[in-house]
């Protein structure tokens, strides 16, 4: 029997080794405590949320059924909220609606009761008096602004990227002229739909108050987001707020900003009742109320030479932000920054616009705007190849950025550019070119085809983000020469704790099991910045490495000949008292970003990936099965190759689900299918076998020999690779997701009718 708890008895380097993840044993034995596994606190109440159930309107009143016994029910409404704003980027979202209703699931009142069944009845005993107003659900309709539901004209944000000939006052006319001058001009329109993160653990929080202030613990990605939200909402001093992560059952961005709202709701009820309050969303509520991936619509026009050399790109990226701004400006930003794909363009004009609709706010979701625009550019490159009768993979390979080339924002790539190697390895492993050349394989009523996508994804915050954020990590020296890492970065399944311990162990030169990672709690960890943007390993990991080196050098400085590290550490602690290294992140000095012109080093480095999907399409039912999925990814340095592959494969499957089966169905602003029964994510039988190849083109500023961020990367390429394979198998061209059998059938019927 394998003992995963067995301590490593000798000092081996662990970077690059598949050590057993530190939280593995607790998770496989069922003792890991997720928020709803925590025992009730004394006097604890259950909390629930009364929602608008009207997409847009004016709240005239809240009616509490007088025949219901409210004596043991705590009620909170907007008037109980000290500062009724969800602190994020723009102050447009209330903690509880007071007057305006902007989407179907807007929280209006909160109830708490010790008896869960009575709480359910109490929810039924509340009715809302809402005067309906005309609502807008479609982003193009919102952009047309016939009905204004947000600001002056529904537009929340705009960005403009220009390069080359388009770098003038009249960029629109200039890019049109540049494209018109090209040999070949291709136009297209590409759309993507909502996607639910569908972490398997629904959102949940427990909050309580005591002499130390407000406490909240639960399922979350970013403890300091919740901290900032509490500071604003309750007007508390920072040291009066204590936010602690429970073991978290997946996030994918879905637990980035929304948990702040749930934690504030629980804390409002706890404050009013004087008791701890637990709010656990059931699956339907989680589907309905929490954020999703932004739908998008891209209009693309490009020019190239007859031989397929790309020249000029014009793109309009429209994103549906939903009812409030939340993180949409940043999502749109990452979207436009990835819109040119991984290709060389001389002249570029990319315009990004986000508009409001009366649907629940869209927010963070793995990829953060990039999967939408990479869907557009990859499908567009497939269209260019179709026009030129070129093989799309070959067209992409020929035009992809290499070291020294400049991106759409005129960023010159300075090394760690592993794209070419990824193409070679993914194509070789899958026999891509030979299978493309052979053409689709048709057996009876089943057709097989193969397709690829080529893409890169920026690691860390955009532009000057990391410079402004100043993420920090602390490492304490513990008795016996052990280290304790204190960081605000959370492990939500990706393996942060394990990888941080690997980085610190090798940096300090101590055994892996002598490093412990503290539970992220704002009471005792510094703000390392949020667990987002593919930044945890690359950015925060690099300061873990520096802090571990720094503290080890303090021990080594007092170490006597022949003395062990542990003995020297104990002597240092005894003589000098507590030893801590607190290190703040500094981006590479050369990172230069012009926020006004949207020019320069958008990200310090990019991770690269090439996906190849082989599919089988049933020509009667139009069901698509992905038979095999190959990927080659340039990750800089794989600190834990097994978890690295696991992360890439999980992201690819999330992208395949988005492409083929996941579809939220809307009716007048309400979600018709808010359950796992009819929002279909892939099962083990739907998932293809994955063959994942790691490429290591080290990033000079990454930890442990050059690691880059890969959390979001795999979400970008699955959908276009599958669509290209479906096109190869059937000839059906689909540029708007998802590729459900109904939509494939409609596209096939249309193309038949056209012929």
């Amino acid at each position: 029997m394998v003992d995963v708890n067995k301590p490593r008895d000798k000092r081996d380097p662990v970077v690059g080794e598949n050590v057993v993840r530190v939280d593995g044993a607790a998770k496989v034995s069922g003792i890991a405590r997720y928020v709803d596994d925590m025992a009730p606190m004394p006097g604890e109440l259950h909390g629930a949320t009364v929602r608008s159930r009207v997409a847009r309107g004016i709240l005239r009143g809240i009616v509490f059924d007088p025949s219901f016994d409210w004596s043991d029910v705590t009620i909170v409404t907007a008037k109980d909220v000290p500062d009724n704003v969800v602190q994020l980027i723009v102050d447009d979202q209330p903690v509880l609606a007071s007057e305006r209703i902007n989407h179907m699931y807007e929280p209006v009142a909160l109830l708490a009761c010790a008896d869960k069944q009575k709480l359910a009845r109490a929810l039924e005993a509340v009715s809302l008096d809402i005067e309906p107003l005309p609502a807008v659900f479609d982003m193009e309709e919102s952009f047309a602004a016939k009905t204004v539901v947000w600001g002056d004209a529904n537009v929340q944000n705009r960005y403009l990227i220009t390069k080359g000939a388009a770098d003038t006052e009249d960029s629109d006319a200039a890019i049109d002229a540049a494209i018109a001058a090209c040999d070949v001009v291709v136009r297209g329109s590409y759309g993507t739909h909502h996607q639910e993160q569908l972490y398997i653990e629904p959102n949940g929080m427990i909050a309580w108050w005591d002499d130390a202030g407000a406490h909240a613990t639960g399922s979350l990605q970013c403890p300091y987001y919740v901290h900032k939200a509490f500071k604003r909402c309750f007007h508390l001093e920072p040291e009066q707020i204590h936010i602690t992560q429970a073991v978290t059952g997946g996030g994918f961005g879905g637990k980035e900003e929304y948990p702040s709202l749930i934690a504030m709701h629980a804390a409002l009820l706890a404050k009013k009742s004087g008791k701890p309050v637990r709010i656990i969303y059931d699956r339907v509520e989680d589907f309905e109320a929490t954020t999703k991936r932004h739908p998008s619509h891209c209009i693309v026009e490009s020019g190239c030479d007859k031989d397929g050399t790309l020249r000029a790109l014009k793109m309009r990226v429209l994103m549906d932000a939903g009812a409030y701004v939340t993180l949409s400006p940043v999502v749109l930003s990452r979207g436009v920054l990835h819109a040119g794909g991984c290709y060389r363009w001389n002249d570029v004009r990319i315009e990004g616009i986000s508009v409001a609709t009366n649907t629940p706010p869209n927010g963070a979701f793995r990829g953060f705007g990039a999967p939408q625009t990479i869907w557009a550019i990859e499908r567009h490159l497939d269209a260019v190849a179709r026009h030129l009768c070129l093989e799309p993979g070959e067209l992409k390979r020929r035009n992809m950025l290499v070291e020294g080339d400049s991106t759409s924002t005129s960023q010159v790539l300075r090394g760690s550019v592993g794209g070419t190697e990824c193409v070679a390895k993914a194509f070789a492993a899958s026999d891509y070119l030979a299978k493309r050349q052979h053409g689709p394989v048709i057996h009876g009523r089943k057709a097989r085809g193969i397709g690829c996508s080529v893409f890169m994804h920026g690691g860390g915050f955009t532009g000057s983000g990391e410079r402004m954020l100043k993420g920090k990590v602390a490492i304490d020296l513990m008795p016996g020469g052990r280290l304790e890492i204190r960081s605000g970065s959370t492990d939500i399944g990706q393996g942060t704790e394990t990888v941080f311990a690997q980085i610190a162990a090798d940096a300090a030169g101590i055994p892996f099991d002598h490093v412990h990672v503290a539970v992220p709690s704002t009471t005792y960890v510094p703000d390392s910045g949020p667990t987002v943007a593919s930044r945890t390993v690359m950015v925060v990991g690099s300061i873990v490495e520096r802090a571990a080196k720094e503290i080890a050098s303090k021990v080594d400085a007092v170490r006597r000949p022949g003395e062990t590290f542990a003995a020297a550490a104990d002597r240092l602690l005894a003589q000098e008292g507590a030893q801590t290294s607190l290190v703040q992140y500094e981006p590479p000095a050369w990172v230069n970003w012009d926020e006004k012109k949207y020019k320069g080093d958008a990200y310090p480095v990019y991770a690269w990936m090439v996906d190849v999907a082989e599919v089988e399409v049933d020509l009667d039912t139009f069901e698509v099965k992905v038979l095999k999925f190959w990927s080659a990814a340039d990750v800089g340095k794989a600190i834990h190759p097994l978890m690295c592959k696991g992360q890439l494969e999980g992201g690819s499957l999330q992208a395949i689900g988005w492409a083929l089966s996941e579809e939220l169905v809307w009716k007048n602003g309400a979600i018709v299918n808010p359950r796992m029964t009819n929002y279909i994510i892939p099962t083990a039988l739907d998932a293809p076998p994955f063959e994942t190849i790691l490429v290591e083109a080290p990033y000079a500023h990454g930890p442990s020999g050059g690691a880059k961020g890969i959390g979001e990367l795999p979400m970008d390429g699955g959908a276009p690779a599958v669509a290209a394979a479906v096109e190869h198998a059937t000839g059906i061209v689909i540029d708007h997701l998802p590729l459900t059998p109904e939509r494939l059938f409609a596209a096939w019927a249309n193309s038949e009718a056209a012929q």
Partner: protein
Amino acid sequence: MKVALKVNGVQRHVDLAPLARLLDALRGPLGLTGAKEGCGEGECGTCAVLLDGVPVNSCLVPIGQCDGREVTTVEGLGAIEHLAPLQACMAEHGGAQCGICTPGMLIAAEALLRRNPDPTATDVRTAISGNLCRCTGYERIVQSVLHAAYDLRSADKGAAE
């Protein structure tokens, strides 16, 4: 309603409404929070347990039907100090990421290995097809179960020789 059932080999008693869910009995009075509630309607499999050796979604089983029966939860497979080979393989070979689906996955895999000690990858995929995972893409879960099957067969062979 008073219900007597054997949980992880130990005789236990609960007093609940007959239609109360087995999941609530486990997570509440029985104090076993390994089985999770991911959807409450039998889709996700995070609440899976063995009922007389057969995997069931405990969110769909009324406690009234459990009298005199035997329930095995993830806690019954092996405690943290002495993990069963299946659990150890799941931790070692990348089968667990966020871990929320892991207890249910282990139950489904345990049921498979009890009846088929030498499964193919397709057998594993079929056995866990009622358990949703959003982190791994399933590849590492399948590999973990195949590793465990191999380890168990090798151990059996060793014992026989």
